[in-house]
């Protein structure tokens, strides 16, 4: 006979199982496991806040302590999603306030968070510890003040990339003198002058502070004091701007940096004066992450800095690094795992720096652990891409952004189909891919046949016909997020692969050729999808059904159409066809 798993210890066993996918698998094994799992689940990740309602989530998981929510689609980062589209955090927070008085952590990404929501967090969760608002908006420093004043056990406050209505910098003073639990503070997006004395006192009385990321408004002469109060820092983000070079300041800063023996991650460095860079040299060897994407440092100083960071695992840098800098990087930083090269002058007609595909090829050859790449450049070739693919079959994320659209292989003038084909063929664990350059349907054929682990694909100005989209939807088994702009994809591929859409988190299509009729049809046939048509120019009913919609956002959901849509968004449902017929 069979034997059974000892249920009396299942909960204990589950305490060692943390990943969402494993938890989900566990919950589908059998009735008793389903039940036990849901009662002991403490952490929930909702990749699309409209895929499920707060009520359903609460009913299923009665004992959550930590929730992550994502709102707007990724293309919102490129201003493709209209401002009032949605993604409101308040309904979730209000529901949690009633259901989870012991909630400790909230991580929100691309959501609209009001001051009222922040007030609820501050007042209703007695043991609240972590608030991360990544790329959020809708709140002001007043909301932050309420958090500071009330959350006695707050460990982490992270406002990366969020738009904050900066009413006053005084909110920092709202942390009471008795408050000492801060471990991580990220206020880089705040632009107003903060009260430095309050900041200094706060830093001084929080002995566990490990991450401090400040806005560029913190002047350089204050930094040494801060660093001296927090020599235990592991992560620092700070502008280093100053108007002049003071020898005093230089030595103070050098001393302060040397004192931070545990510093591993550095970012910011906006407006840095190159002559101050040597103050960083003592800590370079210990750095694992360096983000210079805001720093206008030019090549010789940049190379000097980077080549001292032999333990670097992650580098984000502007294209000032040029091919020569990347070659130096490949020689010095053998532990490099992630590289992002951003454009210093994306709108310029002519290249302002000497950064080409060669830089990336060098890094792919020299850095065996490199698995994540984001690279902006102005030219690429199939042979370079193939070389990169063969050098680095361990790539998991590859995002190539050739600045001008429709750029062919600069050597052969061919499309870049074969090059990207090599990437998907050799990099069998590739999870994320962004394409650019001149691309035909052929590249999608490659992606469909090889991209079996691909989870996220971003396309712009690529392909010839519906066949391209069909290859992707029918071939990429693991696809979760697909975002497309300005591609000649229409109805056929979408409708033929309608079932696929229920296996994905979301599909975004803007400036494509999907007709209004197809949207309606999809909305009718697929009750578990929300098919949202975004039309800022006017109701799609006012144009013929064959006309393409401006923007289309399709996502699976168990909660039906949402009720908080702005006036220019419509959800296609079973009624929509009837209305216009």
């Amino acid at each position, binding site marked *: 006979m069979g034997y059974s798993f000892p249920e009396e*210890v299942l909960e*204990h066993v589950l305490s060692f199982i943390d990943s969402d996918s494993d938890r989900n698998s566990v919950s589908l094994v059998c009735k008793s496991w389903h039940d036990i799992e849901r009662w002991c689940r403490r952490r929930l990740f909702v990749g699309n806040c409209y895929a499920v309602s707060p009520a359903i989530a609460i009913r299923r998981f009665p004992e959550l302590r930590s929730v992550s929510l994502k709102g707007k689609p990724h293309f919102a980062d490129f201003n493709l999603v209209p401002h009032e589209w949605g993604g409101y955090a308040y309904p979730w927070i209000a529901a949690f306030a009633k259901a989870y008085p012991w909630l400790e952590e909230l991580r929100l990404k691309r959501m609209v968070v009001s001051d009222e929501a922040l007030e609820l967090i501050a007042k209703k969760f007695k043991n609240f510890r972590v608030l991360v608002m990544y790329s959020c908006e809708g709140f002001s420093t007043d909301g932050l003040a309420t958090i500071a004043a009330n959350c006695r056990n707050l460990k982490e406050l992270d406002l990366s990339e969020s738009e904050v209505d900066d009413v006053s910098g005084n909110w920092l003073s709202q942390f009471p003198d008795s408050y000492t639990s801060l471990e991580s503070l990220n206020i880089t997006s705040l632009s107003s002058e903060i009260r430095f004395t309050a900041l200094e006192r706060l830093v001084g009385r929080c002995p566990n502070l490990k991450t401090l990321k400040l806005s560029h408004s913190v002047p350089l002469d204050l930094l040494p004091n801060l660093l001296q109060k927090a020599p235990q820092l592991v992560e620092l983000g700070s502008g280093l701007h100053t108007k002049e070079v003071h020898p005093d300041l230089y030595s103070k800063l050098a001393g302060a940096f040397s004192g931070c023996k545990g510093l591993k991650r550095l970012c910011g460095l906006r407006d840095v004066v190159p002559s101050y860079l040597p103050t960083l040299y003592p800590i370079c060897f210990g750095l694992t992450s360096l983000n210079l994407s805001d720093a206008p440092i030019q090549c010789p100083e940049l190379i000097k800095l980077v080549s001292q960071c032999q333990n670097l695992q992650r580098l984000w840098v502007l294209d000032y690094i040029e091919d020569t800098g990347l070659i130096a990087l490949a020689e010095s930083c053998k532990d490099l795992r992630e590289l992002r090269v951003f454009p210093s002058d994306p709108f310029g007609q002519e290249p302002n720096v000497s950064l080409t595909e060669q830089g990336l090829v060098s890094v792919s050859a020299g850095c065996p652990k490199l698995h994540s790449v984001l690279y902006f450049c102005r030219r690429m070739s199939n042979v370079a891409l193939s070389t990169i693919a063969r050098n680095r079959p361990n790539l998991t994320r590859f995002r190539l952004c050739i600045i001008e659209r429709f750029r062919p292989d600069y050597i052969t003038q061919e499309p870049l189909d074969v090059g990207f084909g090599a990437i998907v063929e050799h990099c069998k664990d590739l999870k994320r891919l962004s394409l650019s350059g001149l691309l035909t349907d052929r590249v999608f054929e490659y992606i469909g046949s090889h991209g079996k682990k691909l989870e996220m694909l971003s396309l712009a100005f690529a392909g010839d016909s519906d066949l391209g989209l069909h290859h992707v939807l029918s071939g990429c088994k693991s696809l979760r997020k697909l975002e497309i702009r300005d591609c000649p994809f229409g109805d056929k591929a979408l409708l033929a692969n309608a079932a696929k859409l229920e296996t994905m988190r979301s599909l975004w299509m803007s400036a494509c050729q999907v007709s209004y009729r197809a949207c309606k049809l999809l909305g009718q046939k697929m009750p578990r999808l929300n098919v949202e048509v975004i039309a800022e120019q006017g109701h799609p009913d006012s144009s013929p059904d064959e006309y393409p919609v401006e923007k289309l956002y399709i996502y699976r959901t*168990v909660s*039906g159409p949402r009720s908080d849509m702005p006036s220019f968004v419509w959800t296609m449902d079973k009624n929509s066809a*009837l209305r216009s017929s």
Partner: protein
Amino acid sequence: MSESAMAVVKPEMKSYIWLQTADGSIQQVEEEVAMFCPMICREILQTGMGSSKNYAISLPQRVNPAILGLILDYCRFHQVPGRSNKERKSFDEKFIRMDTKKLCELTSAADSLQLKPLVDLTSRALARIIEGKTPEEIRETFHLPDDLTEEEKLEPLRNITDDPRIRLLNRLYARKRKELKEREKLKNVEVEEERVDERSVDDLLSFINGEDGDSKGVRASKNKKKNRRRKDQMKDSSSNNVNGDHKKELDGVHTSCHNAEADEMLVSTPSKTSKLQELPASTFSPKLEFDDGDIDDELDPAMKEQLDREVEDFARRLNSDWPERMQEILSLGQQRRLVPISMNGNGSAHRYTSLDSR
């Protein structure tokens, strides 16, 4: 006593504890080894049992002699104070290597003896076995039953039955069912079949390309888990061959190719297992919990589905905007048709009647 002193002492002087397993067999164990188990330790200290064969400590049922042997090996090793962490870890790593069945028994036994370090060790090992597996694989490994219904896998939407909105909805449901039944008696059921969805992709494409499709509108795809709990009371005249399969568990999650012609479709069926697992719950369960049990089940399943959908839709709209809906609902009694209301974001409500032919 020091170890060397102990070596000099005659064996009979060493203390032993007597343990009895559920099958009746008794064995003796060195005292210090047995005392490593909190449960045994407590028994000895509180009751004085275990000092002789006749007063052997009864161990919990989950501890059989073979497993007891393993546990005692573990205790024997770890109760020695001088060992380094490295040694202990190395022992544990070797110790834990056993087949899954034995591992389960061991975990269970250790738990009943409250031997926490061993429970942790075995639990972690079980966690590692579970990680990375699909639900089927986990079931296979541990011989667990596959007793979640399709419905439960997607978690039906449930409403609290004492919500006044729900009571109203109940009445609405009941009234609607009666209406539909009456209508059915007047119609030829075969007409219904035309409106069942599951059109092939070719149909869809030809519809798009402007050929003459069924103009009655396409219905939303059938939710496969429907009607599974209900008794099959399909009308004989209903040639809903689409429903013919509904007793079988359907593969995969999506059903838009539920047709007999499914194989010919271009529609790519989603992978069975993992994709929808991210979602904690499902949507449109036909069997809303507040169903009145006494309403008879003789409706054509296709009609039932339509009805369920309308009511579900209505319930959802209700939930989102109660006060304004109150008026609508109260006036519904005068109308024969369900009046779905849609709202757009700026608050104006468009009202339209559903076409009867849906």
